[in-house]
């Protein structure tokens, strides 16, 4: 009786006479299959806009990356892709029912327990930084929207702040208040969506519908001033694009009377649900030192007991004038991260209230020349996005295009801590942990 169990192999597969002749042996490399290609042109000389299809040029000779990668290039790859007794690889993604986007997790499992994980990202890498280096400053604001598409305004904000530092532009106070107001609205929408997705990834299909009701309302509000439901393109260097109007104020007034109602409905469903609590409590615990060393920011680090919120740690815009608290929790597990964001929704509603009361009059845009040419130099700006601290490092060489436009994304760092947090947990906890970190793949891959 053989004691060594071969990984992922069954006796029937090899013996089946009806198996296709090119069936892949379990655990081995995929037989390379050239896809059916029409219109193959000569390699290497076709421009990107040529309508003739060359699958090989665009996609590569392998349709997807084999497991294990061949040849092994790095120390960590070698350590990960070598199997011990009783371990198997399980590949989750890049397409999977969890709705956080195209993330691929290669898990190394020993039974149900996760031994190691290798997150593979880059399935949504669109080359935004390179495009921004070849675009005007106005176009940069538009290009940077689809990164964390759930909170588009927070993508534009540090970009605009960095450019304002390079151009020595002062933003009018009304514009700052509008930025804070719209930002906090979007934060509520993003956190409510997070709550819905948290439940959805654990199998609960109802809260997501409430989340989308809230999101639709908020997004229609923002569409009445920005013109778009999702990729707003609203902030400008020196202010915002359009002032508040009657439709926005009436919708906002209506909404304030039921602000956060959907979030309360979701908490009523989830907060005392035993399945939810058992799946989230003490799962994926991150301690303070780990969070600091891995660059975790946002609600994830505040759930570990570190009260690091850029709105108070390094205040920007008009946040010093607004009174709000920084909720913090000590446990550092998935439940704490979830409850953090519920608390932040309430804080955001307070901030919106104060913005509405304190909104000054005045211009919404500073006077700027038509062709923007900042001084040569470097600037860094970071804001507290719903997911963490989102930073932009902009270098200008005096021309009308940024020389280097670097976006530091919080979700990128959070996925970097997944190989540290996941091992030791069971397979079913994968989604509880990864979803509780709230990654958005648009930002991770840029």
């Amino acid at each position: 009786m053989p004691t060594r169990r071969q990984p992922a192999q069954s006796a029937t597969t090899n013996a089946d006479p009806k198996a296709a002749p090119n069936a892949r042996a379990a655990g081995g490399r995929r037989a390379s299959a050239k896809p059916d290609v029409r219109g193959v042109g000569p390699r290497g000389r076709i421009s990107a806009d040529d309508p003739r299809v060359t699958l090989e040029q665009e996609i590569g000779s392998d349709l997807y990356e084999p497991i294990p990668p061949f040849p092994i290039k790095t120390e960590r790859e070698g350590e990960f892709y070598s199997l011990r007794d009783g371990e198997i690889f399980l590949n989750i993604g890049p397409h999977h029912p969890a709705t956080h986007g195209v993330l691929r997790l290669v898990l190394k499992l020993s039974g149900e327990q996760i031994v190691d994980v290798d997150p593979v990202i880059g399935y949504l890498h669109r080359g935004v930084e390179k495009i921004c280096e070849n675009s005007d400053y106005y176009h940069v604001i538009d290009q940077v929207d689809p990164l964390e598409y759930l909170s588009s305004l927070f993508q534009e904000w540090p970009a605009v702040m960095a450019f304002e530092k390079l151009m020595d532009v002062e933003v009018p106070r009304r514009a700052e208040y509008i930025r804070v107001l719209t930002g906090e609205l979007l934060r509520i929408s993003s956190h409510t969506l997070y709550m819905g997705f948290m439940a959805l990834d654990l199998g609960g299909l109802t809260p997501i519908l409430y989340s989308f009701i809230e999101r639709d309302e908020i997004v229609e509000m923002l569409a009445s001033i920005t013109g778009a439901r999702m990729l707003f393109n609203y902030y400008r260097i020196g202010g915002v694009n359009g002032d508040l109007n009657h439709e926005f104020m009436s919708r906002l007034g209506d909404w304030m009377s039921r602000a956060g109602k959907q979030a309360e409905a979701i908490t009523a469903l989830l907060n005392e649900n035993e399945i939810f609590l058992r799946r989230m409590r003490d799962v994926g615990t991150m301690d303070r030192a780990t969070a600091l060393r891995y660059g975790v920011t946002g609600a994830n680090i505040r759930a570990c007991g570190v009260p690091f919120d850029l709105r108070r740690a390094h205040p920007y815009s008009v946040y010093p004038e607004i009174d709000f608290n920084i909720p913090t929790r000590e446990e550092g597990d998935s439940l704490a991260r979830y409850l953090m964001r519920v608390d932040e929704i309430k804080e955001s509603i307070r901030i919106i209230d104060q913005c509405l009361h304190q909104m000054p009059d005045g211009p919404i845009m500073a006077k700027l020349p038509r062709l923007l040419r900042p001084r040569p130099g470097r600037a860094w700006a970071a804001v507290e996005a719903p997911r963490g601290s989102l930073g932009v490092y902009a270098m200008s060489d005096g021309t009308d295009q940024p020389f280097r436009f670097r976006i530091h994304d919080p979700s990128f760092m959070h996925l970097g801590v997944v190989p540290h947090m996941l091992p030791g947990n069971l397979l079913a906890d994968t989604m509880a942990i990864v979803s509780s970190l709230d990654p958005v793949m648009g930002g991770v891959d840029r």
Partner: protein
Amino acid sequence: MDRTLKNRLEVRLAGLTRGPVRQRYDETEIRVSPGDAPKVLTILHDSIDLRFEILADLAGVDTGAEMQVVYHLWSPASDDWLRVVAEGISRDDPRAPSATFLWPGAEWLEREAYDMFGIVFEGNRDLRRILMPADYLSFPLRKDFLLGDDASRTPGAGVRHSERAQVPATPAGGDPAVRRAPAS
């Protein structure tokens, strides 16, 4: 603008920085050579009066003449962001020491800098492509990697300033549209 930070940095990092400590708005910038970067980062992280414990960003930069690695740090003891620029990395064989001994989260940031620029971080246990496919050959954010339809390469040379050629029309090494392995 944190004046005390400038003094503290000059005291702690005497001799390790290249050039003066520059400050503008809420940022302080120091320049170091890549070999000194680990020592500088350790001093910044561990010193009791500096305590730059949070790594906010690690970015690669290609200035056309050289490459740089730019670190952004935050400290509870200072109002400013600190920018550490490790400059002077050559473009032909870019190497820099890794910061993963101090911040394990820098591993993925360095992977990205490698993927986009080709900067090899010595000490990073997992230096492979992260955003591009594993068998990709070029380094996209380098200045000699041109996008498909860069207007600066059109025959008309464009009209607007942004369309004027900022790089030579036929760079040495052949047509950049052809992917080729980086020079070893």
